[in-house]
Each structure stands twice: as structure tokens, then as C-alpha cells.
């Protein structure tokens, strides 16, 4: 839309020798934060469900499970909070010109999100520390705001990201940002909806498969009481239902991308030239203007993207080489996500069939082995998806309005900051694994026979 006038950024853009490091520092911080956030979104609902089962049946086992999960939830939430805090610092530390130029347009999203975080933090404190003092009814009620805030928090962040991908709600006049309408920018944006739904479903997939994977490993090691079966089945059922849905939602996302960001779609597919009735390439490597060693399926791309086998799909040639994202990064990430997504959906369907037909859990060792790797793979799919979205938008930080190189800070020392942060994150990851193992090792306070 706004391509005609070049942007006059609020602060003069400067040359930053370490732009790539800045980008990677940002990517690293996201890659740490986003998997944690999945637990903030999906875990409270699972814990609450288990508490509800306890209230309904009076079965002590559910209570023990809910309490143990709630401890894990609190620890992961704390780590989500601190990694998120780093991200908000980075908005200024790495991209001051992005924030300075467009803060008035997108900032509101984060400001509202702040309140969501408040609600989540307050009620998670009450919930986890309130098992004894609160009446069962009140205690259950105190968990509900946590679930809602997990949703609104992701809504707000994603509204910002959707705006960066599909900017609106302002005009450029002589290069200056004018006529700002923050509400239209954030919530009147057609790009928001597929991103929100796709991320929200992803959170349940990641949380579900990771938690179920823990008990799958316990089963492979031979501990398989009713406690483990219950703790495996509940998250697994959510993930198994969500995984096939995610394929449908992902297809919807791809159609939106085809309409709004044709260059990103061209990078996803490795489509060099604008083509009528374009074919889809599975696997392969993009070099010299085409995909080599891939399997081509004629007309499938046109069909998938526009529901018409003869539709014209725009290629990378619609923009100058300097305005194209790195094709293979985006393409490989996309294929990883889709490959994993398909595998997870099949695993989910297999489970659902056994569960509904035979009314029991699968018995094959291979099922539990697959389940043990499904969790980590779903995290890979999650990060890959974000690589598709963010790297696929490059070199723009705000699509077709502001270049990432114009957004970056002029400050020195980015490699030092990057290295320091990487070390701190490595320590953090070790610490989180350590505490989770400790929490898992604590003896069960089960009085009922398993």
C-alpha cells in the first residue's frame, strides 16, 4: 500500500555493522521465550480441568496431579516472565528506530498486554499458593482469570506481529507517520486471525505433547500406574485433537500469506518466476532460480493457494533481489513445520482411533517412543513456523514500510551483548531442566492405590 513515499524514520537510521548479530540476538530471545509461553497459554487450562475432575469425582488422584502440575506451571511461568522482560528491553535495545517511529501505532497492543500479564501473574500466585486457604470453589475460580489472560496476552502480542506483517492504521505523509489509528492497526487487521488461531492451537500441541511425553518416558522405564496413565491421557487427548486441526489452520494461513505477502509465499515455495498453474515442490534445495532434487506436483501450489489449479502465483521476480528474503532458510523451515505437523496429526489420529474404538490407551512400545519425541518435535515446528513468518518478511521489519536495517540500533557492542545473553540463556536452560527433574522426582503423595 504505502510503497510510494519512502519512510522518514523518527531517528536517523545509522549503519550497523552487526545487523545480522542483532537479528540473531532477537531470534535467540524469541526461540527461548515462545516455547515457555506455550505453557502459560495451555497449561492453566489443563490444570484447571484436572482440578475440576477432582471436584466432580472426589478422587484424590486428580488433586495430587493438579497440585504437582501447578508447581511446574509456576516455575515455567516465572521463566516466561523473565524471558519476556528481556524481549521488551530488546524492542529498545536492538530496534530503537522501529519503536521510535511506530511505537504510537503498535505500542497500545503491548500496553494492554501488560494488564493481561498482571492478571496472569496475580491469579497464578493466588492459585498456586492458595490450595489450602481458599475454599475449593474459590480456588477453582481463581484459576479462570489465568486461562483468560493467557489468551488475551497472546492476542495482544500477535496483533503487533500481524501489524508488522500487514501494516495498516496509519498513513505516510511526506515520509512521516500521520493519521494514526491504533485500534484499527491492531485489531482491524485481517492478518491477525490466522496467526492468532495458529499460535493458540500450537500452544496446546506443544504443551500437550511435551507433558504427555514425560509420562511416555516413565512408561518406557516401567512405571505405569493409574497416576501415570491419567497424567498421560489428558494432555495427549488435547494435543491429538489439536494436531489435525492445526493442519487445516496452517493451510488457511498459507492462503492468507499468498494474498498479503506474495514474496513470502514465493520464498516458502522456492518459486523464482511468476507462474500460471504453479506446481508444488516437496523437499529439495533452492539454487540457481529453481528447486533441485525436489518432488514436483503439478498445479498443486496454485490449487492450494488460490483454490484454482490455473491461478497465477507471484514469484520472487516481482521484487528486486535486495528485497527478497533468504529463500532456503524460509523454505526449509516451512518444510520442517509441515512435515512435523503432518506426522503429529497422524500420531494424534492413531491415538484417537485406539482410544475411541478400544476404550483404552495404545499398548505398542513404538507409540510411546513416538510420543517421547513428539514433544521436542512440536517445539521445532513452533520455532520453524516463526522463522517462516519473521525471516520470510525480511528485509522488512514492517512489511514494505520499514527496512530492518533502518530499525536497528546504532549502539556498539552487539556481539558482546549477544554472547552474554547466549551464555545466560544456556545457564537458564540448564537451570530449568534441573528444577523440572527435581519436581518430577519428588515422591507422590498418593494415598489411593494405583
Amino acid at each position, binding site marked *: 500500500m504505502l510503497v510510494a513515499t519512502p519512510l522518514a524514520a523518527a531517528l536517523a537510521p545509522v549503519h550497523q555493522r552487526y545487523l545480522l548479530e542483532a537479528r540473531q540476538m532477537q531470534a535467540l530471545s524469541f526461540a527461548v521465550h515462545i516455547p515457555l509461553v506455550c505453557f502459560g497459554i495451555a497449561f492453566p487450562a489443563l490444570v484447571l480441568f484436572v482440578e475440576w475432575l477432582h471436584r466432580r469425582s472426589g478422587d484424590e488422584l486428580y488433586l495430587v496431579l493438579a497440585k504437582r502440575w501447578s508447581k511446574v506451571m509456576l516455575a515455567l511461568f516465572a521463566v516466561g516472565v523473565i524471558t519476556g522482560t528481556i524481549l521488551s*528491553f530488546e524492542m529498545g535495545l536492538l530496534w530503537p528506530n522501529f519503536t521510535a517511529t511506530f511505537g504510537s501505532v503498535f505500542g497500545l497492543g503491548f*500496553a494492554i498486554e501488560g*494488564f493481561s500479564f498482571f492478571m496472569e501473574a496475580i491469579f497464578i500466585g493466588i492459585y498456586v499458593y492458595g490450595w489450602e486457604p481458599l475454599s475449593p470453589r474459590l480456588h477453582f475460580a481463581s484459576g479462570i482469570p489465568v486461562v483468560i489472560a493467557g489468551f488475551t496476552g497472546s492476542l495482544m502480542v500477535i496483533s503487533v506481529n500481524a501489524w508488522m506483517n500487514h501494516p495498516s492504521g496509519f498513513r505516510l505523509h511526506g515520509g512521516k507517520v500521520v493519521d494514526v489509528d491504533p485500534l484499527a492497526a491492531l485489531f482491524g487487521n485481517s492478518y491477525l486471525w490466522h496467526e492468532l488461531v495458529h499460535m493458540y492451537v500450537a500452544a496446546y500441541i506443544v504443551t500437550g505433547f511435551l507433558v504427555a511425553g514425560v509420562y511416555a518416558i516413565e512408561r518406557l522405564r516401567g512405571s505405569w500406574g493409574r497416576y501415570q496413565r491419567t497424567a498421560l491421557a489428558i494432555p495427549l487427548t488435547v494435543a491429538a485433537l489439536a494436531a489435525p486441526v492445526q493442519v487445516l*489452520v496452517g493451510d488457511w494461513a498459507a492462503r492468507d500469506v499468498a494474498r498479503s505477502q506474495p514474496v513470502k509465499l514465493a520464498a516458502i515455495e522456492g518459486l523464482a518466476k511468476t507462474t500460471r498453474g504453479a506446481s508444488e515442490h516437496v523437499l529439495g534445495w533452492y539454487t540457481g532460480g529453481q528447486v533441485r532434487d525436489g518432488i514436483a506436483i503439478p498445479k498443486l501450489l496454485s490449487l492450494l493457494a488460490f483454490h484454482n489449479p490455473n491461478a497465477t502465483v507471484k514469484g520472487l521476480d516481482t521484487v528486486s533481489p535486495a528485497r527478497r528474503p533468504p529463500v532456503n532458510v524460509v523454505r526449509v523451515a516451512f518444510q520442517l513445520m509441515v512435515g512435523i505437523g503432518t506426522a503429529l496429526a497422524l500420531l494424534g489420529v492413531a491415538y484417537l482411533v485406539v482410544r475411541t474404538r478400544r476404550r483404552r490407551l495404545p499398548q505398542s512400545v513404538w507409540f510411546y517412543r513416538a510420543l517421547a519425541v513428539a514433544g521436542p518435535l512440536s517445539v521445532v515446528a513452533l520455532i520453524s513456523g516463526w522463522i517462516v513468518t519473521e525471516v520470510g518478511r525480511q528485509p522488512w521489519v514492517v512489511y514494505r514500510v520499514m527496512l530492518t536495517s533502518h530499525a536497528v540500533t546504532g*549502539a*556498539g557492542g552487539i556481539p558482546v551483548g549477544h554472547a552474554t545473553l547466549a551464555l545466560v540463556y544456556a545457564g537458564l536452560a540448564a537451570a530449568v531442566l*534441573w528444577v523440572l527433574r527435581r519436581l518430577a522426582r519428588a515422591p507422590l503423595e498418593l494415598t489411593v492405590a494405583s
Partner: protein
Amino acid sequence: MHLYDVPLVFALIGLVLYTVLAGADFGAGAWQMLAGRGAAGERTRDHAHRSMGPVWEANHVWLIFVLTVMWTAYPTAFGSIASTLSVPLLLAGIGIIVRGAAYALRTGAESPRELRAIDRASAVSSIVTPFALGAAVGGIASRRVPVGNAAGHLFSSWLNPTSALIGGLAVATSAYLAAVYLAADAVRVGDRDLERAFRARALLAGVLAGAIALGGVAVLHSDARPLYQGLVRGAALGALVASVLAGAATLALVWWRRFEAARYTAALAVAAVVAGWGLAQHPLLLPGLTVARAAAPHDTLVAVVVAVIAGGALLFPSLGLLFGLLLRGHLDREPGAAQPVAEGRAILAASAPGLLGRAAAACLVAGIGFLTIAEQPWAHALGVAALLAFVVLGFFALESADQARL
């Protein structure tokens, strides 16, 4: 006051609350360092951890609040500040990571040795973080942050007398607030030894903070003359006097063991200093940049103000609930012991799993039709709703009605 000042007032209120609430948390972390070894030291450190547990996250969100309001309402100023002060801000960020991680780790620690190691890391970060944030404030207050992308000096913008002063003051104030807070908590749990110990610490840290603040006037006189001149006249002077009075009152209250009241006067003292700073600097946000010129367009300001007021209407009752439970001692125990089992009630068990399952399948088919085959936005909305209904219904069909069979 103009509309363009209002978000700044919100941000300053957020800053005061962050200083008072999270400051107490950092201070508690710092006291863990000085608690020493042995059973007594362990008890002190444990106490410091326990009193902060339930409120830790909520206290830290105030910083996020300040940042987001600043970058939405005064984007150019925010960009300039963050790019010039990148070093102290990154330090503070890392400090927050370590402090938060230590807090999460403590739930898993088993031996005293592990606890000591965790507390030591937490103590170092609890000193570094307030210092770094205070030093950044000092850079802004002494006009060392010009408008522009990293236009100020990478180091001297925060390594200078004013920054050292405000950073030191932030550390001392945190220690002081924490000691007052922990003394009050010790009274609540009825631990006389701890109360005595933290009362002594509060008095010590309070006198120290007061001395730094008074001595700081001389530093500002030589290093940050415009700020000094702004501080010694008009309303800003009034604010400073109020702060001194509140500070003295706090010390007296601690002396007489009125810890609960001392918390509020201490908060007042901090609020008055921040207000004094704001008044002394008004109308400039950064050198050459007035608040009016830094402010976002009108519609954004209206949206921010409305959002903050609406959010506050939700937030303050919730905070009240949390602190109410905490101060009445309801959140002192970690989760663990069993509680009496509630009466069982069957809600969904009545509905047969088969029925729910069939409804779920129908939703799946509808979802595919509306989301994948149809093309209109309204159809997509229906499709998403149907798919989510599929997940929810399918889940209840299996896990609510069928769960007990496993």
C-alpha cells in the same frame, strides 16, 4: 496538565510502584547475601524467599508497564533512551533473569548447599539490577541522553557521578524497603528473632539511604546543574521536603516497631522523590525534546489513557485481593498437604461419551467446510469456531466421561 502529560504521570506512578514493590524484592535478595551461614542464616534466607513468593511476578510487571507506556506514548524518547543506555539496560535485564531463575530454582532445591548457591546468585543480581536501573535514570536526569539513535556515549551516559548516586540510592532504598517489609512479615508469623534482626537492618539501611540522598544534593550541584536548579524551587522543592519528612517518619515508625505504617511512609518518600524529579525536569523529557513534542498523536494518547484506566479498574481490585490474602497470612504455605475432599458432583458425566463424540465429529466436518473450502471471512470465522468446538467436545467426550476407565 495536558493530555500529553497524562501517560507520563502513569509511567511515573508505575516507576514508583516498581521501586517500592520490586525494590523490596531485590532488597530481600540482597539481604540473603548478608544472612550468613548456619541455621539462623538459613531461616533468614527462607523467610526472605517465602514472603516474596506469591507476589514476585506481579511486582515485576510494573517495569513492563512503564516500558510499554513509554514506547507507546513517547516513542522517540524511548528509542533514544534505550539505544544510548543499552549497557545498563542489558545488565538490568540479565539481573532480572538471574533473580527470576533463582526464584524458580528454589522450589527444586533440596540441600542447604544448593540453597546457599542459589541465594548467592540471586543476591548479586539483586544488587546489580537496581544499580543498573538507577544508573540509567541518572543518565536521563543529568541530560546525558540526547535525542537520536545511540547518540549518547555508550559508557559515560551511565558511568558518571549522578548515575552512581541514583544507582547507589536505588540499592540502599531497596535494602531498606525489604528490611521494613520483612520485619513486618516476621511480626505476622510471630518470629521475634527475625523481627529484631530486620528492624536493625531497616534502621541501618534507612540511615544509609538518607545519608546518600542528602549527600547527593552536592553531587547534583556539581554534576547535574539544571536538575539541581529545578529541584530547589517551586513545587519540586516541596516534593523534596515531603520526601525528607516521610523518610524521617519512616525511621521513627520502624524504631517504634510500627512496621505496617512504615511501609506506607516509605512508599511516600520514594513517590515524592520521583515526583520531584518529574517536576524539576518538566517540560523537558530529553535535552531539546519537550514532553509535548515527544508525545504520540492524539488518538494514540486517548487510547493509552483509556486502556490504562480500564486496565487499572481490573488490576487494582485484583492486586488488593492478592496482597490481602498475603498480608493476612493466607499464602504462607507452599502447596503440598492434602485437603479434605469436596463433595463429588456429576456435571458432564450424565452426557454419554457417544453423544459428545458425535457432536465433535460434526463440528470437524463443518470446520473443514467453512475454513478450508469456503473463502469468505465470515465462513472462516465459523470454521475456526467449529474446529475449536471439535477440540473441546472431543476432549470432554474422552477425558471427562471416559477418563475413569483408564
